[in-house]
């Protein structure tokens, strides 16, 4: 077996300042919201939540909406001015929630891009996000048509002109808005129909977006949900949405109060024309769609099962956050019922499966460390070599030697510049079998082991931190052995958001270990 000791690759250079900015923003929100309620980390779930609010408020508004050209505007005015206490608030809530959904989706998109969470097996989630954005915009814009005020007139005519540029209609659809009397109730009903069914397609695409993730999180924390809902309701009460003057196809609206969340590109369309806008929209969409496959292509080998070491215990199957491991009937004649199988197309190479494998122990004698399931490009044998080498270089006279296990996306990814401390970086902290902690303390020479990772509640591989906590607490196989002095093991991701925080944790740990030494413990 090759002695592959390479560490997981760090973020690309151009990405680092943006990541630093993202971390700074998240740290700011951590101070106010705590890591459990941080809205930046839950932007995707907030987008789902806003969809539900928009759907429910939309149903209520539709009850009082008149679906005819002549009655639509008056019915909206009735809701806004007469039934302001209910339908008016619902109307405003519908609008502001739709705008908030654009913001949440945008933050989610930027965050996933900066975190490089769109390549490899994650391509499907990214790729499916492109039509989600298209349907999101179509849903919002089609909603504005229904008010049938001057803004609706502008948006509807602009939208039809844009579609007419495709040349797929025999007659330009913009001709439906040519003169007073051109727009019929029948065509207006089509617009109403559009605003009902495009959001349903949007919901379908949102489902597709998360379908390849096991236990997808689509709901924000309760506190965050109530907080954002309360904020939207207060906004709707204090600043209700109002309409422009009624649409008149014999006049052209001159000054409009655009909803810039959805209509940002309409002035660009006015300036460039439909052809250029189609070219730009399709180019951006295609580029966004192929992003997962653009260089530099980083596609390490997926987890690999070694059947002669696999007894079919299914711990890797239980722990895989992406459902990439399945169990099937044995094929090698070994006296076990099942064997693990890895779906390379879904495996994100996090290594949590290797951390769950009971065969992943560094205490074996006489052979290489071969786990029942492992990452070929970041094998656990390499982790053993690295931790041994790292501890050998630590000056244990200065301070009790601390071994920090970290992950490539966590706070300690760049190492810990503290005397007496060394670090070993893994693809995910969940890749660490508890037996390695035992090995570091009993054979490696470490006085203490500190586990660092992503910020609490934000594990890059979803469940690495959670599974590690449970393994160390004896609540999840494989357990940390009882003989280990728990005072020599520390978990540091709650309240550790920056390298500075981690340094302080390590120093405090060293001070504690020194005290233990003096106490003769």
């Amino acid at each position, binding site marked *: 077996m090759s002695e592959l000791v390479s560490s997981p690759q760090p973020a690309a250079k151009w990405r680092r300042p943006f990541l630093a900015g993202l971390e700074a923003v998240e740290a700011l929100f951590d101070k106010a919201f705590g890591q459990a309620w941080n809205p930046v980390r839950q932007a995707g779930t907030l987008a789902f939540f806003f969809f539900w609010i928009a759907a429910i408020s939309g149903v209520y508004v539709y*009850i*009082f909406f008149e679906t005819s050209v002549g009655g639509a505007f008056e019915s909206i005015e009735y809701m806004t001015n007469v039934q302001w206490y209910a339908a008016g608030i619902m109307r405003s809530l519908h609008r502001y929630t739709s705008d908030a959904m654009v913001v949440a989706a945008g933050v989610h998109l930027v965050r996933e891009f900066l975190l490089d969470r769109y390549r490899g097996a994650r391509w499907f989630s990214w790729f499916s996000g492109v039509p989600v954005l298209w349907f999101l915009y179509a849903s919002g814009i089609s909603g504005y048509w229904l008010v049938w005020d001057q803004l609706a007139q502008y948006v509807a005519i602009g939208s039809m002109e844009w579609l007419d540029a495709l040349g797929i209609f025999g007659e330009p659809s913009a001709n439906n808005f040519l003169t007073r009397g051109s727009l019929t109730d029948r065509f207006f009903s089509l617009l109403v129909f559009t605003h009902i069914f495009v959001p349903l397609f949007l919901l379908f695409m949102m489902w597709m977006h998360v379908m390849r993730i096991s236990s997808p999180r689509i709901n924000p924390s309760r506190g965050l949900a109530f907080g954002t809902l309360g904020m*939207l309701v207060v906004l709707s009460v204090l600043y209700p949405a109002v309409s422009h003057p009624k649409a008149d196809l014999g006049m052209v609206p001159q000054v409009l109060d655009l909803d810039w969340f959805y209509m940002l590109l309409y002035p660009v369309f006015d300036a460039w024309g439909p052809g250029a806008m189609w070219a730009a929209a399709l180019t951006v969409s295609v580029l966004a769609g192929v992003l997962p496959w653009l260089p530099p292509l980083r596609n390490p080998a997926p987890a690999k099962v070694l059947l002669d070491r696999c007894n079919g215990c299914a711990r890797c199957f239980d722990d895989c956050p992406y459902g990439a491991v399945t169990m099937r009937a044995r094929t090698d004649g070994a006296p076990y019922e099942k064997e693990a199988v890895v779906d390379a197309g879904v495996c994100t190479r996090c290594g949590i499966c290797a951390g769950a494998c009971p065969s992943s122990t560094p205490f074996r004698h006489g052979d290489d460390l071969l786990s029942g399931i492992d990452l070929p490009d970041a094998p656990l044998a390499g982790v053993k070599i690295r931790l041994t080498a790292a501890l050998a270089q630590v000056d244990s006279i200065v301070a009790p030697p601390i071994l920090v296990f970290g992950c490539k996306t966590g706070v300690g990814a760049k190492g810990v510049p503290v005397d007496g401390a060394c670090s070993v970086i893994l693809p995910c902290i969940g890749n660490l079998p508890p037996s390695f902690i035992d090995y570091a303390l009993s054979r490696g020479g470490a006085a203490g082991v500190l586990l660092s990772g992503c910020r609490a509640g934000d594990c890059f591989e979803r469940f690495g931190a959670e599974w590690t906590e449970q393994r160390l607490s004896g609540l999840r196989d494989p357990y940390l052995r009882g003989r280990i002095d728990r005072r020599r093991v520390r978990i540091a991701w709650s309240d550790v958001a920056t390298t500075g925080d981690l340094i302080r944790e390590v120093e405090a740990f060293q001070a504690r270990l020194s005290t233990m030494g003096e106490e003769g413990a």
Partner: protein
Amino acid sequence: METTFHGASYFYLVPVAIFLPLVLFGLWSFGLKDLFRRTDAEKRERRLDQIRRDKDAKRRLAKSGGLAVRPVTEPPRSVGSWIGRAIAYGAFAVVLGAFSNWPPYAYWPESTGQLKVSLSVPGDHKEACRKRTRDELAKLPPNMRAPMSCSRERFPVVLEASLDGSPLYRESREPTGLSKDGASAFYKKFPILAGTHEVAVRLSLDGGTTFPYILDHTLAIASGQAVVLGFGGVEKSLFLR
């Protein structure tokens, strides 16, 4: 007899009563239920609570000393954090409220109206229709014995317009369709200063050779008024409406 319910006609409530349960069921199935049911994290926590009650787990947990499962950091409860949250929510509300209808966009210049050219008209056939001979008709299947034979391909349509003697618009549009037998469509918008203008329009259906359709019109247009230049009507002529 009362026919409305708080402003909504009972008639419109019927489809709502029929389709609303279906829509709600769909929303419930797609994920609304997750808002009311326990999240996966809560279910795991409950399962862990049950495991913790198990004796073996208690023994291991006792051995694990101070490494019980630590919950994700609870939201801070200090005054500063409440103020921070209020500021964050307030800022988000301000952003939403502001950019949902501000800044205003000047779409159309002031003191101008709009002349919208919108017409869809087929050009003349490139080859004149001719009458089929008796022998030609006999060779055709009975259901295809049309007396006239016309080529499919049409000429491009040319439209010229001038405003107060100056050229405003000239476009030649090819017929649509793979066989170039469809109508040629024009669509363009022009800002026109409010006031009175002389508009002259010529339309050719044979690629610009002849212009059988002519319109000369004195147009009085107000600021913000939209006027359409089209083609059609009973007499098949150019019009300004």
